[in-house]
């Protein structure tokens, strides 16, 4: 019995490792065509799905000659003009062709995929969310654990835990229809942009962070607090000098977990970030993040564009992995 129990728990534990490894391997295999083609340059390339000529000049600058020559003349017989047009343009839709299992003919142009804009968008939106959420979440936690009388702290605490359970799509819809337009009225810009995405993300992670922080603050032994009060410390001093240092690990842990959630959040951000492949020059510019690019393009992609999406997913996986490892190492270092 004892050994069976041991084996069972061992199996459960190794399943997690196996799943993690399997995800990594699948992502890597699927992303391989894109990794081989673009390498690490993918990380610093800002173009996404842009065709360039083989000599690396974007086609916006240099005209493609052989495709257009037949249809420029409007005096051609209309039907004939139509037909050549249809055939020519059909060649450009590689996704449908790849879906039908037909090779695309690529002689004169090449498509470039690069992940810089979504990577930057992910980091910036997460950063805004953290800057917005951390002080508010701390305030809530302090209020609930130290200041509020129990008959208030209890219902508010439950409400915050309920908030954490709201599906993200609801935050997205709310952001799209009410919060986004509201923000754009105050600070200008369009109704969906980086700032709105960051704030909605922040609102989403507040309850999460607040309830974890409150829990770890509550673990401060009363003896410590009482002795501080006995020395004549004020409430603020007790919170600052006794509770915070004691609960530090838990608080930082809650921040890192919230950060992980913000990094990977998809649906809510997809509605409010704007979905424009562009560097945000100011906070109110629309942009994209990695999960948003994945959600928006996955269903209709195939071939190289699909591989590029998997490459992005792999990058997100690695970023999340680094964040979580950082958290783990932080705890290990502190426990000594």
């Amino acid at each position, binding site marked *: 019995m004892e050994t069976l129990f041991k084996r069972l728990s061992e199996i459960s534990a190794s399943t997690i490792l196996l799943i993690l490894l399997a995800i990594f391997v699948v992502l890597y295999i699927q992303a391989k065509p894109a990794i081989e083609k673009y390498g690490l340059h993918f990380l610093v390339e800002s173009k996404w799905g842009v065709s360039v000529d083989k000599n690396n000049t974007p086609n916006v600058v240099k005209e493609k000659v052989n495709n257009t020559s037949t249809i420029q003349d409007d005096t051609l017989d209309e039907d004939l003009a139509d037909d050549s047009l249809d055939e020519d343009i059909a060649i450009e839709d590689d996704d*449908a062709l790849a879906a039908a299992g037909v090779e695309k003919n690529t002689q004169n142009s090449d498509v470039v995929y690069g992940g810089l804009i979504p990577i930057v968008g992910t980091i910036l939106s997460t950063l805004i969310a953290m800057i917005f959420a951390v002080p508010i979440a701390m305030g809530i936690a302090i209020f609930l654990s130290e200041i509020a009388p129990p008959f208030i702290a209890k219902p508010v605490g439950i409400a915050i835990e309920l908030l954490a359970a709201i599906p993200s799509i609801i935050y997205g819809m709310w952001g799209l229809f009410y919060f986004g337009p509201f923000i754009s009225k105050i600070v200008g810009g369009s109704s969906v942009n980086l700032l709105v995405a960051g704030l909605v993300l922040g609102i989403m992670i507040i309850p999460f962070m607040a309830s974890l922080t409150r829990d770890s603050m509550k673990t401060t032994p009363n003896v410590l607090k009482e002795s501080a009060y006995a020395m004549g410390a004020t409430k603020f001093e007790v919170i600052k000098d006794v509770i915070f240092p004691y609960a530090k690990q838990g608080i930082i842990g809650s921040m890192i977990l919230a950060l992980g959630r913000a990094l990977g959040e998809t649906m809510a951000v997809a509605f409010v970030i704007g979905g424009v492949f562009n560097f945000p020059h100011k906070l109110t510019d629309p942009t994209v993040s990695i999960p948003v690019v994945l959600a928006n393009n996955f269903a209709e992609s195939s071939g190289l564009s699909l591989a590029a999406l998997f490459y992005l997913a792999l990058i997100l996986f690695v970023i999340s992995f680094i964040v979580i490892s950082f958290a783990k190492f932080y705890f290990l270092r502190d426990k000594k």
Partner: protein
Amino acid sequence: MKKILAGLTLAAVSTFAWTINGTGATFPYPVYKQWIKGFYQETGNKVNYTGTGSGTGIKEVAKRHVDFGGSDKPLSPNTLKQAKLYQFPTVVGGIALGYNLPGVKNLKLSEAAIEGIALGTIQYWDNPVIVKYNPNEKLPHKKIIFVHRSDKSGTTFNFTYYLSKMSSIWRKYYGAKKMINWPTDEQGRGVAGKGNFGVSAAIKTNPYSIGYVDYADALKNNLNMAELQGRDAKFYAPTPKNFSEGAKFAGFDAKKDFFKVIAYPRHGYPIIAATFILVPAEKKDNDKKVTTFFNYAYDHDEVASKLGYVPLPSNVKAMVRKYWEEKGISPK
């Protein structure tokens, strides 16, 4: 005795009634659903259709996982031959340009205006190119916010396809794609929405914006829709009547498997697109069941009209039926 009888009737039903499965484009899903319901009530035959997206529809039928695939994007005759598929259109829909311009209710956009707005060469609403056909409207000196789809979509493909046909400059520099790096984005005047409803919401919540939306969605969201200049230089409002006028002149050709992405017809509303059905060429018996269903659908136009779709004009239907006959997949 009763048991045997019951068994016999059951056997009879199961031999005569059949089921076919299809998947693909989500755009025609509501109308297919209604047709499927009516068809089942009339014949007892079951058709299953799931809206999974055109890409999936093409993929699944090319791999022979389903009896038919739905796609908003037709395949070229060449591709069809390689993938061994037949193709025919079912219904037509239009793409509208929805706008949000406080105080302006009847915006008319010429081809030059549409081209300029998309290319980003027209940046303000009071540009003379736009004012020319709207002499009675008070167009503000405000930046035009161009709203587009943030997800890869057939609607974007169709709209950019229309632009490519209408404007040789657009065609040279951008072409037709499911996702495009819009020139207006680089100028900081771009906003994107996820799905048709995301675009509609973005237009509604951003004053001085304009964007392309499927007609049915624009209607649902009460957007103001611009009258567009057709190929014959006349202006057409996005109405079912003008769509079907366009469909009549769309130039579908059975010899080319009806390959026609965006009609851009000689008369009528300029941005209309059909949605298509793909069937495997070698499964003729199954295909006959598929055509039986769509033959029923062609006879029930009112279902489509009620939902904001445009039924195929009768000349195109006749062409499709002849195409079925030639390929040996006529309804039983």
